[in-house]
């Protein structure tokens, strides 16, 4: 018994580590979005600021780091991502639906082949789907000569929609297959016996039954398209979507504006998850109430009668929200008290850095001058010791700015 207890504690610790691994990085990234320093970090904390959500900054050395609201490339990419997502939903949901319905109508060997080919795209690496789409359409565009075909064959948005549809259709297909497994085929037969045409059966019976699957397939397709990178980066050609913009930003240099963007996405995801959970619970409760009501009506057993409870119950998660709110206010208060918030703080940090930068520049200049003189005199070239080893101090160069020299 004791060893069981010990095991449970171990498991608890393990799960804690796992959750830390899952959420720790995201949490830290979110916090760095509020640090005014131009390198996303926590420990040399400059000031609390919203600048990365707003206008960004122009660094003292002339480097321009755009914030979220002023970055036109991000906005452009966002619009293209939305367009592509819409296109993918419009194509892949009907394709997935058609394939899954046909799967129920074919048999034995053909069925196995059909199923295997349909799920193949999920097993292909995303880059390969992107590449194959591009090379094929480039060829088609070349053969087609000038005109419409050449235009669409070299249009990044069109190619991306096709490339993504290739494997996102499989996701939709799998969702529909799962739903169709529980479909009662006698419904169709009954409708046909009562004189409905096949088209009517499709629209009046099958489509309403598949409606939940259509909705979830559309959502999944849109999200998968929206966050896809591997296929898009090849098939988008000269255009840019949100993910490729993010990728080029991350590769070029890392700026807290990306943290800010991530925080916005995290917040949206959280809201969506909470709304979904609340709706689901409400639906569950309603279903249960309806069932209870039904049982009561059938049995007329007064013991089963449930009085409709009108008392308002405070949901438990409200307390968590309030706790976070209080913590937030308290933390913010501390920030203001310690001069870590507001334009003054940012200005002070900025000027400190500027003077630091200027000083270093001056010292370097001086060093260069003296070295020149010395080399004329034929003296020792390693001038470091002459300044009380001031350049031996690595920290001088460490605070230089946004360069991360140790990384490579």
């Amino acid at each position, binding site marked *: 018994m004791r060893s069981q207890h010990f095991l449970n504690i171990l*498991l608890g610790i*393990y799960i804690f580590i*796992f*959750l830390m*691994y*899952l959420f*720790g990085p*995201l949490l*830290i*990234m979110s916090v760095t979005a509020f640090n005014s320093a131009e*390198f*996303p*970090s926590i*420990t040399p904390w400059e000031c609390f600021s919203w600048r990365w959500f707003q206008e960004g900054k122009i660094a003292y050395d002339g480097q321009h780091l755009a914030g979220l609201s002023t970055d036109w490339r991000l906005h452009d990419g966002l619009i293209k991502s939305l367009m592509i997502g819409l296109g993918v939903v419009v194509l892949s949901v009907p*394709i997935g639906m*058609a*394939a899954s319905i046909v799967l129920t109508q074919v048999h034995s060997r053909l069925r196995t082949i059909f*199923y*295997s*080919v349909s*799920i193949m*795209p999920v*097993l292909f*690496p*995303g*880059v*390969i*789907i992107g*590449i*194959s*789409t591009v*090379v*094929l359409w480039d*060829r088609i565009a070349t053969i087609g000569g000038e005109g419409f075909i050449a235009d669409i064959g070299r249009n990044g948005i069109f190619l991306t929609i096709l490339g993504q*549809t*290739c494997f996102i259709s499989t996701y939709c297909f*799998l969702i529909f297959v799962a739903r169709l497994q529980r479909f009662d085929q006698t419904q169709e037969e009954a409708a046909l016996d009562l004189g409905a*045409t*096949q088209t009517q059966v499709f629209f009046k019976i099958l489509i309403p039954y598949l409606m939940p699957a259509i909705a979830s397939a559309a959502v999944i397709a849109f999200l998968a398209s929206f*966050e896809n*990178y*591997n296929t898009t*980066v*090849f098939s988008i050609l000269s255009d840019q979507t949100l*993910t490729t913009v*993010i*990728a080029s930003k*991350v590769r070029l240099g*890392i700026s807290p504006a990306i*943290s800010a*963007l*991530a925080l916005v*996405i995290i917040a949206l*995801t959280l809201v969506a*998850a909470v709304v979904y959970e609340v709706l689901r619970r409400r639906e569950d409760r309603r279903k249960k109430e309806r069932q209870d009501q039904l049982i009561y009506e059938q049995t007329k057993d007064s013991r089963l009668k449930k009085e409709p409870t009108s008392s308002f119950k405070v949901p438990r998660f409200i307390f968590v929200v309030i706790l976070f709110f209080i913590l937030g206010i308290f933390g913010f208060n501390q920030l203001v008290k310690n001069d870590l918030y507001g334009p003054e703080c940012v200005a002070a940090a900025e000027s400190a850095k500027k003077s630091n930068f200027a000083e270093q520049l001056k010292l370097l200049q001086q060093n260069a001058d003296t070295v020149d003189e010395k080399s004329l005199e034929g003296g020792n070239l390693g001038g470091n010791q002459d300044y009380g080893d001031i350049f031996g101090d690595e920290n001088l160069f460490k605070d230089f700015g946004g360069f*991360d*020299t*140790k*990384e*490579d």
Partner: protein
Amino acid sequence: MNSFFNKNGPLISTYFIIAIVFWLIFLIIIPQLYMLDLSFRPNLPPLLRGGPDDVHTLVHYKHFIFGSETSADAYNYVDIGVFLNTIFTAIMVTIINLCFCYPIAFYMAKVAKPNSARLLIVALIIPFWINELLRSFALRILFAGEGVINNILIGTGLIDAGINFIALDIALYTGLTYAYILLMIFPLYNAIESLDTNQLEAAKDLGSSTIRTHWRIVIPHAKAGIASGCTMVFMLTAGALATPVVLSSPNTYWFTQLIYQWFNMNDNWSRGSAYSILLLSVSVIFVLLMMRLFKVKIGEIVR
């Protein structure tokens, strides 16, 4: 064919046929076949394509094995090294992921109460709606030379100089494991969940130790889930592009980065295609291997 039309009516049948032909033939099969063909052709400017020089050749595959003709080495050590390193890392990441996720999946399926298991599932899904690039970026903030972990370690006096996590590939391994956790956990969870809890209790009553129970009962039962999870993780890791771009050290190249380079920077599409075919064949071989090893059907792998 006739019965198909009779069953669905003319309008719906036409829709079905158009949708399926468009998808299977036009989006899946033809592009792959064309890419395969292109990989056997020399890299020509558009005007010369289809001309007398446009013949089938093995030049790109030769380049992968023997290197360019001007180089002194007998074999193309760089590319082959990248290729093997990618496969090796992908296998390692898959194994790490399996070991890491198995206890969690078991906990969710058998130990936790239904409500907390559901909560855990939602908690698992949330990070995976956030872009892979942004997740890698979060890890980069942690692991950078002046990143959070180094600053904390130096601040507490545990180490004197920063550890270069990125050059040591620690960041890459962590990032790749992080990226596809979900695709390992869900198949495992589904497989373990379908196990009858009575079997576990029976084993316990008969005096089996915890490890033995897992080895003899849970793992054999979860075979299909393990195969499915491993396949998905291996595929996605070997074909990953976003995470290696952000987290790999400058001297570690990922095979997809090589493909990207041939394709976009050197403008040699046919060589890019040839390298893609190599990656694709590794994926296919891995799937077949998994199917053979775990004796599962392809339908059980993708669900």
